[in-house]
């Protein structure tokens, strides 16, 4: 009968046990769960005090988690260490019950229940109720742990998704940055956040010397990081520089720890992208530089082409031809034949040291100056001197012009000549002997020391041939790096002593090109050829 009453009473309690379980399960922390449990206990037993303790491991101390008390009677000595559920009903002690409940995570839950307010003993119903409540707590705690584990798993999974997502975003962003400092800053921040590194460091070294360094967060001791045992690194070399990334001290709640394989993968992936960005920047700069150079060459070429004559004057009694074949890198070759009136003509050939716009502009200066000075009918040596001073002032120290001018009196064949540092010009006499017209002074613009130029006067007899050229002909190279040579050129000059002037020009150009083969033309090919008929 008594048992039937018990069962009946317990049946009435099922709802409240269920409700109690739900309340406990909704607790968001262990402490809150314990507090709720104590309220549940007090509601069922109407006791003065209840104290709840927790011990994480078997050999640690009990610590008070929560209490419902009228007086502070807490006393851990009443708790029993046990690997099984232990419920001790105490008589004539300050506590009525001492409970030790082992939990599923190998911790222990201890409860000290004070005496009942009505001073009565714990009845059978109370004891059964206590057992059930302890089971409710145990189940709720298991559920709490499962939820916590589930939350942790979801967190970890989301963390992996974040890592993957951020890695992709980082790789895309890193490929778009053209400013290195921003690129490195982005890489460091992302490496740190993706791997939970406390610190990230970036160094560029040349021959073991640090040329650049950047860190995240910006202020910390670099030595502390580099000396830490908890680091990983990734590096690459490019253009004689060494780029290194370091990560130090992976964070956890329990303190710093080692990085794992995934962290190394993430670090390496971002490092590779940084490398790719740097390589692309280099190639891009090269392409820009190349484009700039090509534009400059085009400008230089157009300057040169505007200056060089489209047509040479017809000189009565003479056969004159000339050409300029520019190299890929526009040089500073110049040639011209200027009619001075009264049957006089100035034949000029010149070569500016250097290439590009600078050389082209200097040639332009020479051309303008020549046209001016020739109008004044100055003695050639004096004119050469004036040109020298002008070019010296107009050009940088490393630029000068080798220059040859011959003033032809077409009626007499007299040649008034100045050779300022140019190759020896060749004169073929009727008897097939060559006269070399050597330099009578240094190139224009080389020195300004009042050293006078020496002039020469020669006669071009009928049948005689004058060959003006620049060093692009004798110095033309083939694939074996052999030069066409002065010797070969002179032999050609003698051998072709019956060609008309244009025929000679064309044949010589062909001969040089045949010699050079597929080798790139390294300098302008320029020549003027005059025959006195």
């Amino acid at each position, binding site marked *: 009968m008594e048992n039937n009453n018990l069962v009946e009473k317990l049946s009435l309690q099922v709802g409240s046990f269920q409700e109690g379980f739900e309340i406990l399960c909704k607790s968001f922390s262990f402490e809150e769960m314990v507090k709720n449990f104590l309220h549940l206990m007090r509601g069922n037993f109407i006791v003065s005090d209840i104290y709840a303790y927790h011990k994480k491991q078997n050999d640690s101390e009990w610590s008070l988690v929560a209490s419902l008390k009228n007086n502070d009677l807490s006393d851990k000595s009443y708790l029993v260490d046990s690997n099984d559920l232990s419920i001790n009903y105490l008589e004539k002690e300050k506590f009525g019950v001492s409970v030790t409940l082992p939990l599923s995570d190998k911790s222990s839950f201890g409860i000290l229940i004070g005496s009942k307010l009505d001073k009565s003993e714990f009845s059978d119903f109370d004891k059964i109720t206590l057992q059930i409540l302890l089971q409710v707590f145990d189940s709720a705690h298991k559920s709490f742990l499962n939820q916590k584990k589930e939350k942790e798993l979801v967190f970890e999974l989301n963390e992996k998704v974040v890592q993957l*997502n951020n890695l992709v975003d980082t790789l895309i962003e890193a490929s778009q940055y053209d400013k290195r400092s921003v690129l490195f800053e982005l890489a460091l*921040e992302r490496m*740190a*956040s993706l791997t939970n590194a*406390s610190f990230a460091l970036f160094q560029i070294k040349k021959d073991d010397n640090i040329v650049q360094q950047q860190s995240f*967060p910006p202020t910390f001791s670099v030595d502390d990081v580099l000396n830490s045992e908890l680091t990983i690194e990734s590096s690459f070399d490019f253009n004689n520089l060494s780029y290194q990334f370091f990560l130090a001290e992976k*964070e956890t709640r329990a303190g710093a720890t080692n990085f794992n394989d995934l962290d190394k993968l993430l670090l390496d992936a971002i490092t590779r992208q940084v490398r790719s960005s740097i390589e692309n920047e280099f190639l891009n700069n090269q392409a820009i530089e190349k484009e700039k150079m090509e534009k400059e060459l085009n400008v230089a070429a157009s300057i040169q082409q505007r200056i060089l004559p489209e047509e040479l004057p017809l000189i009565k009694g003479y056969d004159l031809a000339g050409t300029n074949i520019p190299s890929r890198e526009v040089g500073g070759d110049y040639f011209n034949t200027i009619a001075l009136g009264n049957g006089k003509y100035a034949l000029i050939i010149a070569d500016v040291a250097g290439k590009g716009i600078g050389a082209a502009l200097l040639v332009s200066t020479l051309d303008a100056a020549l046209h001016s000075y020739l109008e004044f009918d100055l003695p050639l040596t004096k004119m050469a001197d004036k040109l020298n001073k002008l070019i010296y002032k107009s050009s940088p120290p490393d630029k000068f012009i080798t220059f040859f001018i011959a003033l032809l009196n077409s009626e007499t064949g007299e040649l008034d000549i100045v050779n300022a540092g140019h190759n020896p010009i060749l004169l073929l006499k009727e008897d097939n002997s060559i006269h070399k017209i050597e330099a009578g002074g240094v190139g224009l613009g080389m020195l300004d020391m009042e050293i006078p130029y020496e002039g020469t006067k020669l006669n071009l007899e009928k049948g005689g041939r004058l060959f003006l050229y620049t060093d692009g002909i004798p110095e033309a190279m083939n694939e074996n790096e052999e030069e066409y040579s002065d010797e070969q050129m002179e032999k050609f000059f003698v051998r072709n002593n019956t060609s008309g002037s244009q025929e000679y020009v064309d044949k010589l150009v062909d001969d040089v090109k045949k010699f050079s083969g597929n080798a790139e033309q390294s300098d302008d090919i320029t020549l003027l050829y005059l025959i006195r008929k």
Partner: protein
Amino acid sequence: MSTDFNLVSELHDKTLVIKTEGYINNSGGENIAQEFSKHNNVNKLILNLENSKVVNSMGISHLIEVIENLNQSGGKLVFTNLDPTIEKTFTIMGLFQFAEKADTVESALNN
């Protein structure tokens, strides 16, 4: 070693506004949680992350605990001035299921 994290806070009735500066890592997250725990009866926490462009998962785990604390008492956390990368990270981590975001502190205060 310094990690360059700072915060300032202001209490507006039951709304606490915290503005952070620097890397929200484990210690940054702890600082935020500690600052929040100093104030009782706060039912709204506005977290202005304008000067924090980098956050890691340890920092996020502290923020999640703060969110849970607030939600338990019927309160809410509102993030403002979020960097797009951080906003994306929070979205993936599911924070906005339990917290809110606003463009500015003012709009968060007014809602």
